[in-house]
């Protein structure tokens, strides 16, 4: 999993939610995110999930999303092998969100404040994590 978020508090909280479910890398700006994604593909690996802040100072999330999909396309990666992308945004900006869905084929979006239940339900729907183990409660 990769969290791309330039703001420390938001980044830390996202990592705290995700880290029980796997290794969680971080990128603090767009350039770093593109470099990290590129490096993963260079070693025939990829991230199952990218949580991507849509508004960052240098390369914004939309641009990163386009680059990610180009990296996948150039390697023939698609369908269920494609990286799931959840965009995060500080406001319910419908135009930005629609663009991310239409042009970047993002899978979900979250508005800040991030809600851990909503994030985890997206991950379950994407089959990236399992159902919680309720059996241990009985």
């Amino acid at each position, binding site marked *: 999993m990769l969290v791309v978020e*330039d*703001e*420390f*508090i*938001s980044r*830390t*909280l996202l990592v*705290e*939610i995700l880290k029980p479910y796997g290794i969680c890398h971080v990128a603090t700006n767009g350039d770093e995110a593109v470099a990290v994604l590129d490096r993963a593909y260079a070693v025939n690996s990829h991230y199952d999930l990218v949580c991507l*802040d849509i*508004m960052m*100072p240098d390369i914004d999330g939309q641009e990163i999303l386009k680059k990610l999909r180009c990296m996948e396309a150039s390697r023939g990666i698609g369908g269920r092998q494609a990286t799931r992308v959840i965009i995060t945004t*500080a*406001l319910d900006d419908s135009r930005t969100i629609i663009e991310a869905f239409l042009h970047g084929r993002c899978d979900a979006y979250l508005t*800040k*404040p*991030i*809600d*851990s239940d909503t994030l985890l339900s997206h991950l379950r729907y994407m089959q990236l994590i399992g159902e919680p183990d309720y059996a241990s409660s009985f």
Partner: protein
Amino acid sequence: MSAAQLTDRIRSFLCEQFQLTPDQVSAMMPNFIATLSVHMANLEVGLASGDPQIIGKAGHTIKGALLNLGLADYAELAFAIEKRAKNGDRSVDYHALVANLRRLIAPLIG
């Protein structure tokens, strides 16, 4: 709101919203408050520059932090700064808005 009240409000929000334990929140709080202080300072630097785009970007950053700390009412003020600055609105008294935001979070960041 006093520093203790603000801190309690943030702690409760973080525990509930992110399902964090009180110990986890205690470990995070000093860094979060220090970060908020840096964001506020950056907003003031942006204000001194007089460049609405810089003010807007700094307003955006602190807005996201405030939202994730459960301070949605303060984030509204940051959003007002961001939105107007990014629209290049020079009729706004940004000094007053930024000073108001500092007054609100001063109990936390000093």
